[in-house]
């Protein structure tokens, strides 16, 4: 049974855990944490501070003011433009599985809401759907949400969580990088703020497009952020990689992130940036 329903109410997202499954195992320190404790600490491990993945609705529940979220473009969903099939199956079947498993139609949920009463347009990626990968429908939704911000002159915030472009849609996925960036570029005409929040993981075609061009780039602690895959880099240079390679901290050090913000402080941090929009 799906963990969260598609209810719009933010509080409804954080109701009681299912009885069958009372533990969560931290992906980082491997500690077992009571599910209730895990969710009460916003899916941040109380033992080691690892910021676990959130579903899109969980993130929306944490960031937007209660009962302000209005979902949009929710019917947009993948078709199978390449009629893609490989030895283990077809893209069509995988889409059906992904929809059934997550209750979502794509790897991103878009809509409008308020952050401390500031109206915003948001796009929140969900890693459970095809590894948060960027396909045609993902790109379309992200563009439409940018267009909504443009039309209503409100800030746009994207929360990235992605393994990159979805190869099952080939070149169409690649072009979503250009498509989404075109939507963001246009916001400059009306001086509309665009904030990028990079969460674990933000990689490949997503890091090389909208995730990295925020007016302000905010990352969660310890997130995997990177472009080329670690294995490919190791094979190319045949050297050991730095300790904190391809993490939020690494990218802060090297000048690509404005700030690293703990999840419990994220809503406040967004408000602080948005309040500086002096228009």
């Amino acid at each position: 049974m799906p963990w969260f329903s598609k209810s719009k109410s933010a509080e409804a997202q954080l109701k009681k855990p299912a009885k069958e499954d009372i533990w969560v195992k931290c992906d980082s320190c491997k500690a077992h944490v009571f599910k209730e404790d895990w969710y009460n600490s916003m899916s941040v491990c109380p033992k080691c501070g690892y910021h676990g993945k959130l579903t899109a609705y969980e993130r929306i529940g944490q960031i937007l003011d209660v009962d302000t979220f209005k979902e949009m473009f929710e019917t947009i969903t993948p078709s199978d433009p390449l009629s893609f099939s490989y030895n283990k199956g077809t893209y069509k079947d995988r889409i059906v599985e992904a929809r059934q498993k997550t209750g979502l139609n794509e790897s991103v949920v878009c809509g409008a809401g308020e952050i401390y009463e500031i109206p915003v347009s948001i796009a929140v990626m969900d890693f459970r759907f095809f590894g948060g990968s960027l396909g045609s429908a993902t790109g379309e939704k992200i563009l439409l949400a940018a267009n909504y911000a443009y039309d209503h002159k409100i800030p746009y915030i994207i929360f990235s969580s992605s393994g990159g472009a979805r190869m099952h849609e080939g070149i169409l996925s690649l072009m979503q990088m250009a498509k989404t960036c075109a939507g963001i570029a246009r916001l400059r005409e009306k001086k509309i703020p665009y904030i990028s929040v990079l969460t674990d993981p933000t990689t490949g075609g997503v890091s090389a497009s909208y995730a990295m061009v925020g007016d302000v780039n905010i990352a969660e602690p310890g997130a995997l952020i990177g472009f080329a895959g670690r294995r490919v880099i190791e094979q190319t240079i045949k050297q050991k990689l730095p300790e904190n390679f391809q993490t939020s901290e690494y990218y802060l050090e090297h000048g690509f992130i404005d700030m690293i913000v703990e999840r419990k402080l994220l809503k406040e941090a967004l408000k602080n940036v948005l309040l500086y929009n002096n228009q």
Partner: protein
Amino acid sequence: MSDYFDFEKPIAEMEKMIEKLKSIAPEKNHFGDEIADLEKKCIAQKKEIYANLTPWQKVQFARHPKRPVLRDYINLIFTNFVELHGDRCFGDDQGLIGGFATLGKQKVMLIGHNKGKNIDENITRNFGQAKPEGYRKALRLMHLAEKYNLPVVCFIDTQGAYPGIDAEERGNAEAIARNLTEMASLTVPIVAIVTGEGGSGGALGIGVGDVILMLEHAIYSVISPEGCASILYRDASFSNKAAEALKITAPSLLELGIADEIVPEPLGGAHRNHEITAQEIKRVVLSHLAKLTTVSSSRLIKNRFEKYSAMGKFAK
């Protein structure tokens, strides 16, 4: 003499025979009929083979060691190339070059991936795999083109952006993303042509064109067939199946609404005749520039926005 692939064996044999006959009897008349007959058969055979290349065979063509590279095109169809260097921040990437150039009578800003023709060249150019300083140099040149009112012409031919620590450190992701965003609102026309390999984000980083052209046997993909095979098939030897599934050839890209026009190659591939290939590119690029340079900046940007907004296929 060009290299032959396995599937070109029948042609190789015929061409060798023709050469042999020609050398035995330099006076045309001696084996005149036989030679003419063989040449006719050879052309028919070529037409059949090259009209039916599989995606994997096209990949081989796109990566052919004798396929023309940017420097070849510069020498053949551009005049007065004034190469410009540096990103004004870190260094000069020899894997991605650019500068002022003239194509026919049209002055342009030329930018492109710079594959080498031998191992020494390729080492200094990272085999045409650009680093952040390459993309940032490209951006600098594009802004310069805006200032000087020059259209931008981008030659794409790369297996991908350079996958090294230095490239990550200096932000290849941000450099590519920045280019995508800036190219979207560039006030001068951009014509992009994939002449060999269109390697994913590394290609797209100079690929946001008002028009996207592809040479007949070029490929353009979100991931290499080998990469796709090793991830989805868990076996890189399935690269030929992956190449087919990914739909990476020029005709596929035309059908998917991504490529705007295919530039024909000489029979047997660009590597067989650099001059003809280059002239075809010149013809097609100039035809698009002639139209694009008559459009106002604001209309250009609107059209570009609509073009990219329309990319992708999904259901509602």
